[in-house]
């Protein structure tokens, strides 16, 4: 079976080449067929390989394929090789499976677009690079995919280049990602320097061997440096503080792109990379602490920022940043499988949410402002129900998928084996963030689907349910958001249903085996008592319910005092508003204002000033300024040029003599 691994990336590549080179001459039917079927074929191949993988002994579930020797330099030999183990298997199933659904959805969503072929070519190119990233057998092939998906994302964000903001957003995404990649490349160089290889199957055994020999102690500086540098790359790709800012802007791209690239697959590449490198991270607990802390901060702050967004996609964007934070909490507290589990369930429900929002935007003729929506549930029942499913999943209510994965992460965070105290804090922040998540997601549901329609008459006239090629993927993803979590039912709950095994944990176990050995060897005892576990689980559900209730209370019970409503039907609702005033005042004072100002602070000050201004535009400004100052020397006078040469030579000479 390992002979066929190369087919997975090959099909989308073929699709990209055909659509990219000839697509202009094809009809939309052929383009859609090629675009979808190539990804579909990849998915089928993945399924076959999966079946084969399951037939192997759990300890031997590693398939490798080497296509050719790529390059060798200074004892380092890099092959173009693929490796499939349970981790990459799961990833590739998600990438091709969800990717296929989103391709199908796109045939409906993008049908009117004039550059239909270009869109599908880019999308196939993305799937190709993503498959390279996931399947690569060494870090360099992963890096190829890593850069490639960045390029594809850049092209797709700026797909509607007519809007200047879109193009700027695309550029921002690329530049921010390059800053992250800078760290990633340095991490690779350092890894090569330390271990003399970049292949997964060489680096990790080598690290373990050095560790056992005692020449690579736990938390050794070089290892911490490697892990932190790689994590810099991950913060760029996976939108963590401080490099998260590109992701909300990336929503300028078409909605299916947001679903595929900026929610389900590409942005999770950082999580995959950390999970892939688990052996090194486990040997560098300080790096893990940094990962987990940044992740917790991101999870919480991004959630608060989601609260006051009115653009439906911006809400989802901040929510993605926040959820990525949860995944990183998972991998950061050595619960690698839990992070990957959440990655999978998040792929389902967040893709579903984005596609639903796409369906809504489609129905609203391109309007994304939730203040213009309302009461859409009646007009678009399928979209409503599927989105509700996904929202319940992201809010973490049982038995939806998000409950199991988020709970697993928070439970593991509570018992962070290396730093128990920090783990408790991270748990607290994470749980609070989960409450806020439930709040803003239901705010989205209530503002969009409930109440009365607040848009124009014309928009109301156009409201319609989307065609079948858009709704079928929605339904499948909604079902996955419900059942997907059942793959990883914790033991605690499982035993009530006759010892349902934790399928996913068992499947992924071989990948993280060495890490768990190291953890159990060196860390504090990580297990928590059963009652505590129950308490944690209940707490997170209760927090989620509080969040939902609050949203219901504010947006359903008092929903009518939304600013637009107020302006339009001031007289009619005057009485109502007047009566609720007091409550509002308290709410405003205690909840909205702090969150609002905090959100504004983060958004405007932290985001726009510190991070946009100094973090991203700052270097650009410095670069430009320096550039124009240095340019002054280039004044065109040949005497100056000659003088510089002479000065250069004399400097060299002086160095030689007075060395």
């Amino acid at each position, binding site marked *: 079976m390992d002979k066929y691994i190369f087919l997975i990336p090959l099909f989308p590549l073929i699709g990209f080449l055909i659509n990219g080179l000839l697509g202009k001459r094809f009809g939309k039917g052929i383009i859609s067929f090629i675009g979808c079927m190539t990804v579909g074929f990849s998915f089928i191949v993945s399924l076959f390989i999966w079946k084969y993988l399951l037939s192997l002994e759990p300890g031997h579930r590693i398939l490798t394929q080497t296509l*050719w020797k790529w390059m060798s*330099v200074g004892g380092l030999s890099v092959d173009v090789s693929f490796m499939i183990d349970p981790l990459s298997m799961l990833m590739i199933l998600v990438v091709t499976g969800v990717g296929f659904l989103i391709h199908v959805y796109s045939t409906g969503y993008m049908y009117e677009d004039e550059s239909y072929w270009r869109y599908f070519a880019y999308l196939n190119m993305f799937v190709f690079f993503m498959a390279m990233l996931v399947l690569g057998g060494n870090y360099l092939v992963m890096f190829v995919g890593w850069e490639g998906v960045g390029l594809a994302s850049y092209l797709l964000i700026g797909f509607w280049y007519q809007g200047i903001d879109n193009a700027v957003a*695309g*550029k921002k995404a690329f530049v921010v990602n*390059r800053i992250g*990649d*800078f760290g990633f490349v340095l991490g690779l160089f350092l890894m090569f320097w330390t271990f003399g290889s970049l292949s997964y199957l060489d680096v990790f055994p080598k690290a373990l061997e050095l560790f056992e020999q005692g020449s690579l102690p736990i938390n050794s500086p070089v290892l911490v440096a490697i892990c932190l540098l790689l994590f810099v790359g991950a913060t760029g790709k996976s939108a963590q503080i401080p490099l998260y800012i590109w992701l909300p802007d990336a929503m300028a791209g078409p909605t299916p792109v947001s679903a595929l690239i900026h929610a389900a697959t590409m942005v999770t590449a950082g999580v995959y990379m950390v999970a892939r490198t688990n052996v090194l991270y486990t040997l560098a607990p300080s790096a893990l602490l940094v990962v987990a802390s940044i992740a917790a901060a991101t999870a919480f702050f991004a959630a608060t920022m989601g609260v006051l967004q009115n653009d439906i996609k911006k809400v989802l964007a901040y929510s993605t940043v926040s959820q990525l934070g949860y995944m990183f909490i998972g991998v950061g507290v050595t619960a690698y499988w839990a992070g990957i589990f959440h990655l999978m369930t998040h792929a389902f429900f967040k893709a579903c949410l984005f596609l639903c929002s796409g369906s809504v935007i489609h129905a609203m003729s391109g309007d994304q402002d939730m203040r213009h929506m309302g009461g859409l549930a009646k007009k678009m029942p399928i979209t409503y129900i599927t989105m509700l499913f996904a929202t319940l999943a992201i809010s973490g209510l049982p038995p939806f998928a998000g409950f199991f994965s988020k709970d697993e992460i928070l439970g593991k965070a509570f018992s962070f084996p290396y730093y128990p105290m920090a783990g408790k804090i991270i748990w607290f922040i994470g749980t609070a963030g989960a409450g806020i998540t439930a709040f803003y997601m239901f705010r989205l549901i209530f503002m969009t689907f409930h109440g009365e329609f607040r848009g124009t008459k014309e928009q109301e006239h156009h409201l319609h349910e989307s065609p079948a090629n858009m709704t079928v993927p929605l339904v499948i993803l909604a079902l996955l958001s419900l059942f997907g979590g059942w793959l990883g039912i914790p033991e605690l709950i499982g035993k009530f249903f006759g010892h349902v095994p934790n399928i996913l944990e068992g499947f992924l176990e071989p990948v993280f085996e060495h890490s768990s050995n190291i953890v159990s060897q060196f860390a504090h005892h990580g297990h928590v008592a059963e009652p505590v576990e129950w308490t944690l689980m209940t707490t997170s559900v209760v927090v989620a319910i509080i969040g939902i209730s609050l949203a219901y209370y504010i947006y359903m019970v008092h929903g009518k005092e939304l600013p637009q409503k107020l302006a339009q039907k001031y007289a009619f609702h005057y009485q109502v508003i007047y009566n609720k005033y007091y409550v509002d005042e308290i709410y405003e004072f205690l909840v909205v204002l702090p969150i609002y100002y905090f959100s504004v602070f983060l958004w405007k000050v932290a985001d726009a000033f510190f991070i946009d201004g100094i973090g991203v535009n700052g270097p650009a400004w410095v670069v430009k300024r320096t550039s124009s100052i240095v340019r002054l020397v280039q004044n065109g006078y040949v005497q100056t040029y000659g003088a510089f040469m002479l000065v250069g030579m004399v400097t060299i000479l002086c160095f030689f003599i007075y060395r």
Partner: protein
Amino acid sequence: MNNINMSFDLYHLWQVCGGQLILIVAGLLLILVDIILMEKDQEIRGRWMGWLTVFIFAATIGHLACREWDLHDTIFMNVFSADKYSIFISIVMTCAGLLAAMMSIGYLRNNGLVRGEYYILLVFAVAGAIGLIQSVDLLMMFITLEVMSLAIYALAAFLKDSSYSQEGAFKYFLLGSFGSALFLFGVAIIYGTTGTLNITQMAQYISGGSYSTLPILVAFAMIMAGFFFKMAMVPFHMWTPDVYEGAPSVITGFMATAVKAAAFGVFMKVLFVGFTPILASSGQPDFAATVNLSALGPYWKPVIWWLALLSMFIGNLIAVSQSNIKRMLAYSSIAHAGYMAVGIIAANGEGRMGVLFYLFAYTLMNIGAFGVVYLIDGMERKAQDLEDYRGLGYIYPSLSFLLSLFLVAMAGLPPTAGFIAKFYVFAAAIKEGYFLLAALGVLTSVIGAYYYLRVIYLMYMKEKVKDVERGPIAAPTVVALVIAALGVVYLGLLPENLASVANLAQQSLAMIF
């Protein structure tokens, strides 16, 4: 006196200097063809001269590639040497000449400049460059350097009506003469001190202990300065933007690749044969003592360390604020010189191999980029501003795609040749412990990505503001562009073949004596 002609036989000459001979004879023939065709129509003349030149370069590449690879030989009392190293770089430079000649057919027609001298000068420039890379004798190095440079000066000034071209070429000539003078002065001091001009004998002589004396150090610094000028390393780079901007686009591409390859090649030869101990590993007892010369490493390594760093930073930083694409690419070529120099600092086999690979990869992507630039330009300086590239992605999709490919390769994104080349040199530097330099190099390539991708961004994500009409596309230009593009991708996917050849080439440096 009598032994001058004793060792001479024609076959031997052909073996050692075949490439040069073909080009010189062909250049003379081209002069005759040019005057024979003088009365003919410009169209016919251009076609004949152009295709003949293409054929000459192809034949030269064929000869060089099929030459006995294992033959290490010298001629004229060690003036020229034939070895894998010089053949490799000769092929790189002749490839640059070939691609440039193919593009020139269309370029000259588009600019209404069809003149035979252009091709003649191009052929002589390559002949000089091959002579330069083959010479073991410092004086012959100077002569061939001038043969190459004079032809390039004239080519840079070829746009008679463009003041930019004239100004650039004049600056190039003045500063080039200055650089050559420095080099020649260094050579004179070497001769005065050691009594020889042959770099191997010089190495033998100075390894006796005089390497750290004042005259040798002065000579070393002057020779370095002379080469740094041609390599366009900061602070010897100042001529680059003016000349590259003014010169005909195709010639700019040729200068940035062939001249750079020649300068880097000959500099590495002088450095690793004459001033550092690679000869000691040749097994020749005469050169065993040259191992002493490793004491010179602490002299030149910090110098190149700083110059490489400065070149990478200044080249990339200034490129960001350029508005003319040729000027931008000129600064980018300074930055690339810095990257290549990183491979020299490593001073190990991998580093030299990386530089050779880099030279080849850079030749393909840079000439390719200038080829697209001249096509979009239509006439020289009609559409060279970056603003002119807005929205071109939808007007000229193929050209934009090719330019994007070349720029992506220059930015060093995988899986292109540019990435592999950077990887080789940085990996070699890291292996020798130059982690800081490699890290700073990667940082500068992040800056570099910004301006390369800005062009792509303008082409694909901006509305056009100005009607840009590209010039008519000649068939040979298309072929050249496609070859360059395929080469960039091929070297990105399968670099091993070229890398192993380059590795053999760099190993043969030890065999020059």
